[in-house]
């Protein structure tokens, strides 16, 4: 909560230190002075800055970010329409990241110093040093154009009827509409941008899972369990996986911020009709109301995701649960 409040101030300050008059920019060079003045008043631009912030925050809390300075459309309306697509992409990437990272890391730790481990390690290293948009371009080239396994752009194929919008998440909507063909189509459209977006976090997750697992493997409790004759499979699944998940889950939560940022670039590459493309356009046009709304929405996503991550870590780690109970 505190973070969101600070973020709102930060965004507001950024949006008001722009050189130039936003009202003049909105109506254009040739508008008369009266029109500009009227707009200035309706935007509260003549009030002192803290008062402006008050107006802005009141609007933002009600979900009203004002009109776009460029298209004159309602910003909240636009965001509501486009946000689900970005959210879907981000969540999908988050799932791939977490599951893939844990799976690869576990595999790597299990075959420590064998070829499987080495392959995973090289892969993870490349994943960390390659920006997601590079993955996007390379995937697009290989799977979209050369092999033509996956559709290159958009959320659905032309010949598939879009389901009625309920949540805006295409996967959920197609399921609700009971349309498995559309679901499959939405899924393969999501696969390439989602995976490209997930690569960095996936690589990080795999490295971390491997490291913690190898660390835990050397601990006394594992030796004791082995000594008791508990089968290795059970030790791995029940006693090693769970404690090793905790750092991975936390880091995936943290890197989710970067993921949402990178969604900007991938939406451009894959022509994904989400909020980020809208945001980039707003940024290139200096559409302040739209920019601040987009950034605040992303901040909100980050905060919500991290609350979920904290809950997940609490569920995984009995020590944290105990501390929380004691402090209550």
């Amino acid at each position, binding site marked *: 909560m*505190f*973070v969101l409040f*600070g*973020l709102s101030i*930060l*965004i507001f300050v*950024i*949006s008001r*230190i*722009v*050189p130039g008059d936003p009202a003049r920019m909105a109506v254009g060079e040739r508008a008369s002075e009266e029109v500009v003045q009227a707009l200035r008043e309706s935007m509260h631009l003549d009030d002192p800055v803290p008062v402006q912030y008050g107006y802005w925050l009141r609007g933002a809390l009600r979900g009203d970010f004002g009109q776009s300075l460029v298209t004159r459309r309602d910003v909240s309306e636009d965001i509501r329409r486009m946000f689900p697509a970005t959210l879907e992409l981000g969540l999908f990437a988050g799932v791939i990241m977490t599951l893939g990272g844990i799976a690869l890391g576990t595999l790597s730790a299990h075959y420590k110093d064998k070829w499987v481990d080495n392959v995973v390690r090289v892969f993870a*290293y*490349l994943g*960390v*040093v*390659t*920006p997601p*948009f*590079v993955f996007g*371009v*390379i995937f*697009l*080239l290989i799977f*979209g*154009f*050369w092999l033509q396994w996956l559709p290159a752009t958009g959320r659905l194929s032309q010949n598939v009827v879009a389901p009625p919008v309920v949540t805006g998440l295409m996967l959920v909507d197609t399921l609700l509409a009971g349309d498995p063909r559309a679901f499959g189509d939405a899924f393969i459209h999501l696969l390439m941008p989602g995976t490209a977006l997930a690569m960095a976090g996936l690589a990080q997750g795999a490295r971390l899972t491997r490291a913690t697992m190898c660390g835990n493997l050397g601990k006394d409790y594992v030796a004791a369990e082995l000594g008791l004759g508990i089968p290795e499979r059970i030790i791995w699944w029940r006693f090693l996986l769970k404690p090793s998940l905790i750092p991975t889950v936390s880091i995936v939560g943290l890197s989710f*911020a*970067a993921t*949402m*940022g*990178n969604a*900007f*670039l991938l939406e*451009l*590459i894959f022509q994904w009709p989400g909020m980020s493309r809208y*945001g*980039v356009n*707003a*940024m*290139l046009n*200096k559409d*302040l109301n739209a*920019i*601040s709304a*987009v*950034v605040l929405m*992303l*901040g909100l996503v*980050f*905060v919500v995701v991290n609350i979920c991550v904290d809950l997940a870590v609490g569920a995984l780690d009995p020590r944290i649960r105990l501390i929380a109970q004691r402090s209550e």
Partner: protein
Amino acid sequence: MPAATEFVAEIDAAVVRRHEWANRVQNMRRSWYKFSRNKLSVLGFFVVVLVILLAVLAPWVAPYPQHAGPFVDFKNASQSPSPAHLFGTDTIGRDVLSRVIFALRPALIMGLIVLAIVVPVGVLLGLVAGYFLGTWLDAVIMRITDIFIAVPALVLALAIASVLKPNLTNTMIAVTVMWWPWYTRLVYGLGSSLRNEDFVKSAELEGAGAAYIIFREILPSCWGPIFTKMSLDMGYVLIIGASLSFVGLGEQAPKPGLGTMVSDGSNYLPEQWWLAVFPALAIVVVVLGFNLLGDGLQDMLAAEKGG
């Protein structure tokens, strides 16, 4: 005879200096030995050196230096890679290899300048917050840091870069604004634990001031992790810079930027794949170099600590 004693003292000082110098050389040799045992770190080191040389010597090593600017040669436009144009040519006939080499310049300059500003600021704030652990100064600095860390770095940089004019300087400003908190976090963590070490306590008991303790007692122990992070961050600043220039914020045409080249090139996929792929690979190679180097430094420091 005062002159004689002075003379002796001078010789002593010279001997000590020489000894110190020899020690330092020996230390450096030992460090290099530790560093060079990991072949990958050495590879990273050489990649970084090569990249820096290429960037500095760009006008002399690029096959077609004039292609880095507003140059048009429609006769040779859109050629696939060949011995004459190793990376092919773009849609108006410019040599992609030359442009990639020139694009290394803004990328490296950006990394250097951003770090040159971010490191002192972030480190100083971290030291202060760590030293005044538990006071209001600590609380204020660290809460502000939290806010900056919570915003997606790229988004914040995008927002800042977009309200300013799109050019390299403003992109650097944007990246600088969102990068310092990580150093504050790092140094805060180190500093707040060092704060209770015996050597800090004893300096405090001897009446040393806050500034003395912060800079002379705590800071020297933090350099290792800071250097390591700087090497890794060169790579990440490069990525952020390329990402910003990918959406059109950053070095403006006709000057080449790695991100811009990838994004322009991606419009000509799949026929003219070389336009996007080579600049993209260049980004990966440079970042990989800095990362390998950083990891090598980290291992070296860990080894020194261990023995």
